[in-house]
């Protein structure tokens, strides 16, 4: 085939692994406040999935899958979301965890002390921040790898 991608075996396994790694990355981000992991780790895992796609399919893998503009926009959105979440608590102080233990719908549950199985809807702002950082990290690192591999990046037309 074209010289830009790896052998058919690698490609087939990549098809399978790509979704799996992404889902696992999402799992790591989602359960960041219960199990080891969190925004950075999950984001890095998802970014590795993008890197895997890139190496297995070559730059052809980018088509319809990873768009640099989108990646950059999502990254900025993630960063802004993180900052915005931090701003939420400015009534008390910057980074004040507004939702923790509030009993509200959004991650307001309390957790029992000591060893337990974990409550997914607890943690207040922490899971939301996990997601913001996760979005940021996955798209940011993916953008770096893509740009370094593919080369020139079209800046905004001024």
């Amino acid at each position, binding site marked *: 085939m074209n010289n830009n991608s790896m052998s058919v075996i690698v490609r087939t396994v990549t098809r399978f692994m790509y979704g799996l790694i992404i889902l696992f990355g999402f799992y790591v981000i989602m359960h960041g406040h219960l199990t080891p992991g969190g925004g950075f780790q999950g984001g890095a895992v998802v970014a590795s999935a993008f890197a895997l796609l890139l190496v297995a399919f070559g730059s052809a893998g980018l088509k319809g899958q990873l768009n640099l503009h989108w990646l*950059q926009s999502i990254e900025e959105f993630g960063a802004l979301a993180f900052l915005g979440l931090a701003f939420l608590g400015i009534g008390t102080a910057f980074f004040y965890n507004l939702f923790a233990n509030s009993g509200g719908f959004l991650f307001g549950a309390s957790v029992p002390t000591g060893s*337990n199985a974990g409550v997914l809807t*607890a943690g207040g702002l922490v899971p939301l921040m996990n997601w913001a950082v996760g979005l940021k990290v996955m798209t940011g690192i993916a953008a*770096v790898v893509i*740009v370094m591999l593919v080369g020139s990046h079209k800046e905004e037309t001024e």
Partner: protein
Amino acid sequence: MRKAILFVAFLFVGAFLLLGVADMRPFGEPQMAVMDDYYIQNAQPEVAVNNAVTAVVFDYRGFDTLGEATVLFAAVVGVLGLFRKLREDER
């Protein structure tokens, strides 16, 4: 000659680093851990999070994390800037 002097200086630095590290408190026995004990005890009641590390990363020391996100953002922007498409007059 210069290389020899440099090597001596390097050895000095390395020796001091190793000395300074070896002179520390013994491994596995942190002496003053008031802050960390606070984190461990209060991660669940205060932040409602099971993972104390996440509690530290996103709540107690959340600002560091914002800084870290900024660092990554800066690196991404820097790399994108380096590989950006240039105008005609800038080639």
